């Protein structure tokens, strides 16, 4: 399926883009994440949460969404 991935904050700095679409046929969120890591190795050093269709999900959640977001924590104030 065609998936749009959104990158926020420090994550977008690693990927050098805020959004991209890719064709992916895995079952779990973790499989998609492994695919993303294979594209952007430096992401392995970043902490973030994953949202699918605007809802926070865990790695073992089934991939069902069209839109995935990689969301890092911000400390600044």
């Amino acid at each position, binding site marked *: 399926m065609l998936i749009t991935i959104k990158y*926020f904050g420090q994550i977008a700095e690693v990927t050098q883009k805020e959004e991209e679409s890719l064709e992916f046929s895995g079952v779990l969120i973790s499989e998609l994440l*492994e695919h993303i890591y294979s594209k952007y190795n430096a992401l392995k050093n970043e902490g973030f949460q994953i949202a699918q269709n605007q809802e926070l999900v865990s790695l073992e959640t089934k991939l069902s969404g069209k839109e995935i977001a990689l969301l890092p*924590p911000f400390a600044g*104030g």
Partner: protein
Amino acid sequence: MTNRYNRHIILSEIGQEGQDKLSKAKVLVIGAGGLGCPVLQYLTAAGIGHIGIVDFDVVEISNLQRQVLFGTASLGENKAEAAKKRLEDLNGSISIMAYPEKLTHKNAMALFNQYDIIVDGSDNFATRYLVNDASVITNKPLVFGAVYKFEGQVSVFNYNNGPSYRCLFPTPPKKGAVPNCSEIGVLGVLPGIIGTMQANEVLKIILGLGEPLSGKLLCYNALNSQTITLSINRSSSEIETVLSKKESFHTQSVEEICDIEIDTISITEVVNRTNLQIIDVREIHETPKIEYLEITSIPLSKLEQSVDSIDPEKQKVIFCQSGIRSKRAVSILKALEVNNCYSIVEGAPEIKEFYQELLG
């Protein structure tokens, strides 16, 4: 005589009754910086009856680009005290307390207990996790805001049994892993926008108006004006873990918070060890299977319910497909007080290849 709060009172949704609620409310703001300044300015203008300001830091010239309560005359002054001075001029009819000190595990509970709502305008993870945990333990709603360069996040935690910050980000990043404004810069107007949104959430909670951002994280991008709102679920285990530390809370230190590291181990070291339990946290359908070892299979999704099948006497080494889920497994087990767990750096394909070569 025109009332100071006339523009609130003539709104049928607020009225004198709503304004009285504001004047009875007690709000504690942590940090009088980029976020704290606009929060404090609007809460004071709105007539919040009791406001507390915690900040140990002093005003510097580089703060004036975004910390709008201060002027050149405040340079070198403590921020909590300088803010109080400016705010008392803005509205002399409310009570403002300045706490020119660092928020610590020691003083947090006594401070939080005196207020109804906590606002997080701090600038580092150690304080953010401290603020979250103290809000959970004292059962106070927490209005959260944070910024990074051109992006901001806003949420309301611990509100009506909603999620906490740890339900969103369970473990703090390692020290230095995520830079703050002083290290990396921030668009001055951004904390103005995010802080004003936080003040809006505070008013909504007190007035019972609209829908506070509980169970939701609002992400704002100042460059493309995009706003995305994500749903967050409450994690009972994260909240229980915080609550279980209630009695010893005052003895913890801020430094401890950000030093939770996941122990990792390479497969090359695993071979030399004995008395091990090797755990595969992949789902049952995932391949390759590793035939060379005695392996306990516990998919990550069932880990919390399967603690009984973990041997407390043995050292636990955990693997998955790439070394990501295994790290998460170690952190889940740590939270459940299952110690002596290591995440194998390599994934299943590399582990299989390693044993194939080793055993010829």
